[in-house]
């Protein structure tokens, strides 16, 4: 039975200035909306954020950016956000761009107790500069180290009271690896059900990775509505 917070504010209470946070989502899909809003409200500063993207100007992690709460961003693609551009170019914001698969694997490794691994992505590019390159079976690979976080904030479709999580469609994305790589992981779920209601064969994040839960409605803003 995990802690179930009564508000997003309560959930983010232990998050302090200078901490490293992983925040789930791909674009605006699968982001923990209310936890992000609570971080903005709390005004916590100097955060290092690990997330595939950095939201848009008016939603998601873009809101933290606007309030200058982010010191450093580790991401793979940040092209949707004008304020990001401005802060990155002016040097206010430190940026570490990482190939998307390497980012996913660094986070997966962090949760899995693998401190480093070799990957082909980035070999021969500026991403590999200063990193160890080694050949295996005639191909070159770069050594990448794992990532962990003080807190991971993830967004689920359903949680059970034990902390098992399932995600909706492509809202899964980085959430499961981040749930495993956070020292403390808070799952923001659209619905919290009794333990036993989720199919044990279809759990995306087993309860062991989750420390706290928040039930919260999601706006689910759409970045690029495309229809037939």
């Amino acid at each position: 039975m995990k802690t179930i917070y009564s508000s997003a504010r309560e959930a983010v209470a232990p998050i302090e200035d200078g901490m490293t946070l992983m925040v789930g989502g791909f674009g605006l899909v699968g982001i923990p909306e209310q936890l992000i809003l609570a971080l903005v409200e709390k005004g916590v500063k100097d955060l290092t954020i690990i997330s595939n993207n950095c939201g848009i100007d008016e939603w998601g992690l873009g809101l933290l950016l606007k309030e200058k709460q982010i010191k450093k961003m580790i991401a793979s693609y940040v092209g949707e956000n004008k304020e990001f551009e401005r802060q990155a170019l002016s040097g206010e914001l430190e940026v570490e761009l990482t190939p998307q698969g390497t980012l996913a694997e660094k986070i997966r490794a962090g949760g899995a107790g693998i401190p480093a691994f070799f990957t082909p992505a980035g070999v021969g590019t500026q991403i590999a500069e200063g990193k160890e390159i080694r050949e295996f079976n005639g191909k070159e690979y770069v050594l990448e180290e794992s990532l962990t976080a003080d807190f991971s904030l993830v967004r689920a479709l359903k949680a059970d009271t034990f902390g098992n999580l399932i995600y909706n469609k492509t809202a899964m994305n980085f959430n499961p690896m981040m749930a495993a790589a956070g020292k403390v992981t808070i799952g923001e779920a659209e619905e919290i059900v009794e333990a036993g209601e989720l199919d044990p064969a279809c759990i995306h994040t087993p309860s062991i990775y989750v420390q706290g839960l928040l039930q919260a409605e999601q706006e689910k803003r759409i970045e690029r509505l495309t229809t037939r």
Partner: protein
Amino acid sequence: MATANSRELIARRAEKEIADGDYVNLGIGMPTLVANYISPEKTVVLQSENGLLGIGPYPTEDEVDPDLINAGKETVTASTGAAYFNSAESFAMIRGGHIDVAILGGMEVSEKGDLANWMIPGKVIKGMGGAMDLVHGAKKIIVIMDHVSKKGEPKIKKTCDLPLTGKGVVDKIITERGLIEVTPQGLVLKEVFEGYTVQDILDATDADLTIDVRE
């Protein structure tokens, strides 16, 4: 710059590189168009690196699910037999050599098959997304792009001037002018498209080209 017409021509030619039963990743932009031309005779499964195997058509208004997007962040549907998974699994598929064909856009390609398609120094840095993983994972990497830049400068060059996405990774280049293969012996022009001559292509290419055009 490619006209709507030339974009369609490129996409149609790229489609021929896809075999029945292939698992394919289409990059953002022009590569996404290829999906529109996939022959109904072929079973092709499209992978989206944000965690979907089996991209279906764009949704009707009623079908729109904000939690179901492709890597370009467009709302999509899932096709029959689809599977959802996390980003680590998605790039395990890519990096592990399970994708048969990846079709990507390009800014520059060198005669050794180096690809640059993620940043222009001095301009805003947006990030490489999944491109650096894709170029090392898929069994066949096809770059589709305009033959020359907006300023009319060759994009196929002896060496890339822009920062690389990957070194020695491209298998084929398809532009509105023709199809070029990257071989251990260098670039080989294999096809010249309607409206262009071999000389047109040589003039617009800043690298050595072996001509091996079958009539």
